[in-house]
């Protein structure tokens, strides 16, 4: 008698109910989606890597020469019969423009975020939030066009020369990354618990002291993430930069001389080369550098995030 009910119970518990079946089904679907995405990402990285490495394997370019060479002219071979594929001007250009735009954008972004979040939350929510979201949505070609018709002539008027160069690029990128950095900084400030502020105020700190000594300190990992995120965006931006930088693959000897970045050389060059040729492979190598740098930026963001959580 007893054993029979136990058996029944066991049967009931072991029977796959509808809910259990549904759960298995759901899990399968999401796992498949996940695997698909992983496969795509791996494929992209693999593809870029295999193409980018060809410069060094089939065209026998020295990796060190590639990274430190100062002249970029894949169509020409130098006195030793080696192709001129020195990527240093573009690497320097990319880093310079990224760092400069981040340096200019950070104080503005944090200032705006502080205003939105700490000083006037009502106005912040009503005006600045929608404005930032709007700015994020503007396509980069529009930024590039404005840069071309406003920033470049202004630079030309002030500094002479053509007006194309790192400075103009920095100005355009500054405006482009500002909304992203601002809204991420605002999120970072928002995530500082209210009781931190209350504790500080209750100890007799003024609002500025509270912002400066407590809120910004506590939000530092988030703010750093925001800045690095902006840098990643600046580093990867192609179109707008290409429109204002001048696209001369030369070492930038001043901020107002025409130069180029990894992305600008890629966008201008990739349509004009034949697959499998050295010229084409060299561009893929630039793409590989770009990809690796993006991965590094991602890694930095993750590291900061982890450190922030440990605190």
């Amino acid at each position, binding site marked *: 008698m007893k054993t029979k009910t136990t058996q029944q119970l066991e049967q009931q518990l072991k029977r796959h109910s509808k809910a259990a079946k549904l759960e298995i089904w759901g899990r399968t679907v999401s796992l498949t989606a996940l695997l698909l995405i992983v496969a795509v990402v791996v494929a992209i990285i693999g593809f870029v890597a295999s193409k980018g490495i060809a410069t060094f394997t089939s065209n026998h370019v020295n990796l060190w020469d590639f990274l430190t060479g100062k002249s970029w002219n894949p169509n020409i071979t130098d006195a030793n019969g080696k192709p001129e594929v020195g990527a240093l001007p573009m690497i320097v250009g990319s880093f310079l423009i990224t760092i400069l735009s981040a340096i200019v954008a950070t104080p503005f972004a944090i200032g705006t975020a502080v205003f939105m979040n700490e000083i006037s939350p009502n106005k912040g929510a009503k005006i600045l939030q929608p404005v930032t979201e709007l700015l994020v949505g503007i396509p980069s070609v529009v930024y590039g066009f404005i840069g071309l018709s406003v920033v470049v002539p202004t630079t030309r008027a002030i500094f002479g020369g053509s007006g194309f160069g790192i400075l103009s690029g920095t100005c355009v990128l500054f405006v482009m990354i500002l909304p992203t950095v601002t809204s991420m900084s605002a999120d970072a400030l928002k995530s500082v*618990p209210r*009781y*931190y502020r*209350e*504790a*500080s*105020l*209750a*100890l*007799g*700190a*003024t609002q500025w*002291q509270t912002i400066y*000594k*407590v809120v910004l*300190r*506590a939000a530092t990992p988030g703010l750093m993430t925001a800045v690095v995120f902006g840098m990643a965006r600046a580093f990867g931006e192609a179109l707008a930069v290409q429109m204002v930088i001048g696209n001369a693959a030369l070492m930038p000897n001043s901020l107002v001389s025409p130069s180029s970045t990894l992305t600008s050389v890629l966008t201008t060059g990739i349509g004009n080369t034949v697959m499998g040729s050295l010229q084409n492979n060299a561009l893929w190598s630039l793409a590989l550098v770009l990809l690796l740098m993006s991965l590094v930026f991602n890694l930095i963001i993750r590291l900061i995030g982890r450190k922030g959580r440990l*605190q």
Partner: protein
Amino acid sequence: MFINNDVTKATTMQERHVVQPHEAGHPIILSTEDLHVFYGKKEALFEGDLQFGSNQITALIGPSGSGKSTYLRSLNRMNDRIATVTGKIMYRGVDINQPGIDVYEMRRRVGMVFQRPNPFAKSIYDNIAFALRLRGTTDKYALDEVVETSLKQAALWDQVKDDLNKSALALSGGQAQRLCIARAIAVKPDILLLDEPASALDPVSTSQLEDTLLDLKQHYTIIIVTHNMQQAARISEYTAFFNQGRVLEYDTTSQIFTNPQVQVTSDYVSGNFG
């Protein structure tokens, strides 16, 4: 008209019963007169007329949402940007609820500890030195001394004296709360406001905290919000009972707990409330 059968009781009990403290040696240090608090248009405190004797512990009790925190936070103007507070808050003869008051200076004299232990993500030392540094104290010896005395007064010194440079976030809940007390008393305030400081603590930490408060009474006037009736009975001299935004009864703690004059208080302290 009473729709109550127990007419005798209903008529003998009062609607409201307030006896302000009047003990020799404990002059009134803080009092509120006709205090009203509005959150937007909603009135959350209808009248808070209480007086507090110096070096005494006063407990504020009452059901959830009755306005205890609202009242307490008004006392050091923590409600400034959140609510409208009208009426007078007399601190040693000065109305601190008037526009000309420097709230930052005032909060140095009227400190506050919150329900949830909220140490900053800094070292133990830096937490306690925070308020002094804000006021420009940089002298290492002066800071060292304040850190030590504050931690001793908060009964935390022996546990953390070797870890002063460790993060305050590594402390247990009870330790963190005592750190917050140490941080609040580092600027030597006159009055210490505590909003349910023990509600997140285990019984042992709670009783340690109560001992600490009893010690601190020598130096500070303490006003504490608590949901724990035994706690109020154990540590306070006076108790105010809040209900629906009003102080219904205020008297010595023993009166409130053994001989309440208002029906609602009686129900509340005997656990028959609601």
